[in-house]
């Protein structure tokens, strides 16, 4: 993965992004790894892996320990989840920070997957992540589609944040 790849992403017709919307859309390497990890497992083990992810959601850095108040609440989630994005405009990358209470392990697990899979990627890579990411993890049977919507909502919220940031910093590029 290089910055060059990222710069060419949307609308430039580069070969590997051409099949938008199909299931063959290439995922960024760090996200593909997470998806593969889940894909290999039986239903029961998928839940165990999700639980492991939930335990590994990184603590918020000290600058956010003032609490959830200064982060954005993802209201579509079934339990309180707080999200903030830090932008490195020179590199064109985004760092993601999540927090969710321990009594919401499923939500924490979803957040940890997105953190592990997306944090640090370029704006374009994150915006290009397919909307059906939650389905690709193969969790629908164990978790039910109803619950998976929380993850789709988180991804949507991350993308909306990045688009808004792009619109602010470079209105000409925003679309």
């Amino acid at each position, binding site marked *: 993965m290089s910055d060059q790849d990222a710069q060419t992403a949307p609308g430039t017709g580069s070969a590997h992004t051409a099949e938008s919307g199909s299931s063959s859309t290439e995922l960024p390497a760090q996200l593909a790894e997470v998806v593969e990890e889940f894909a290999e497992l039986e239903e029961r083990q998928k*839940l*165990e892996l*999700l*639980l492991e992810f*939930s335990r590994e959601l990184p603590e918020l850095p000290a600058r956010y320990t003032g609490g959830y108040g200064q982060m954005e609440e993802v*209201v*579509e*989630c*079934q*339990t309180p989840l707080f999200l903030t994005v830090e932008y490195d405009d020179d590199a064109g990358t985004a760092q993601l920070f999540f927090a969710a209470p*321990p*009594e*919401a*392990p*499923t*939500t924490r*697990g979803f957040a940890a997957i997105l953190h592990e899979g997306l944090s640090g990627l370029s704006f374009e890579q994150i915006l290009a992540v397919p909307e059906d990411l939650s389905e690709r993890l193969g969790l629908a*049977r*164990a*978790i*039910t589609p*109803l*619950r998976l*919507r*929380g993850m*789709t*909502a988180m991804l949507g919220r991350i993308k909306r944040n990045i688009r808004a940031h792009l619109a602010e910093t470079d209105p000409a590029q925003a679309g």
Partner: protein
Amino acid sequence: MTTTEKDFSQYANPDALVSTDWVAQHKDDPSVVLLESNEDVLLFETGHIPGAQKIDWHTDLNDPVTRDFLGPQQFAEFAASKGITPETTVVFYGDKSNWWAAYALWVFTLFGHQDLRLMDGGRLKWAAEGRELTTETSPAQPAEYPAPASRDDSTFRAFREDVLAHLGKPLVDVRSPLEYSGERTHMEGYEQEGAMRGGHIPSAASVPWAKAANEDGTFRSRAELEQIYTEQAGLGQADEVIAYCRIGERSSHTWFVLQHLLGYDNVRNYDGSWTEWGNAVRLPIATGEQPGEVPAR
């Protein structure tokens, strides 16, 4: 532990509730099975009351093909796998003020299981009192549960035809005010679950389910509940009441309150709820904050 125990004898059916103290004392009784039913599918694994079994209504209680619950035979097999016999005292508890626990309890009710109870305050209260939680799962001792003759879909459950026939009698909509008025088709904080129309069943009173719960997840006192339902929602001494929400889960909590705590004679839960009614062809709706008129038939 010196907690002031609430006196359950104030409620119409004092046996439908047990305290955390009671559970601590009786959880190892051979005649008692604890079932934890949560919204969060992983919460049980992070720690539960020692000896409790997990129940996930999404995957355990629903028929995988038809939008319906298990049949009697499947129910019997499920109950037996959790160590439950028809004589077992089944105590449900869970997250979110026992909302999903009430749902599981209501489904068990359809199969005629006699001794069903909720642990007042649910998981939250148990944890807040610093009581033991364990991540160790103990497999249930398989039991014998003869298949019930039928699932009773008429006494405690209402279908859309029943609701249509019921119009004019008390209906309680337990969703949030914005879902009731029609500004939203899903509950605040929850992802869209899809309904063609926003609004409520004409003439339904709006009583969001959480009004029945205290901050700590326990049920409000009988006097408070009477104030909310009998007075404010205008149920009075109604003979028949139907409660509904979006998919029938939140309204199970209200069903429990009306059936067991206030003792209404005939309370049914319409589990098709708004995801059915708001999508169905030829069913009337009302929008805005007022209950609206019963349509002429």
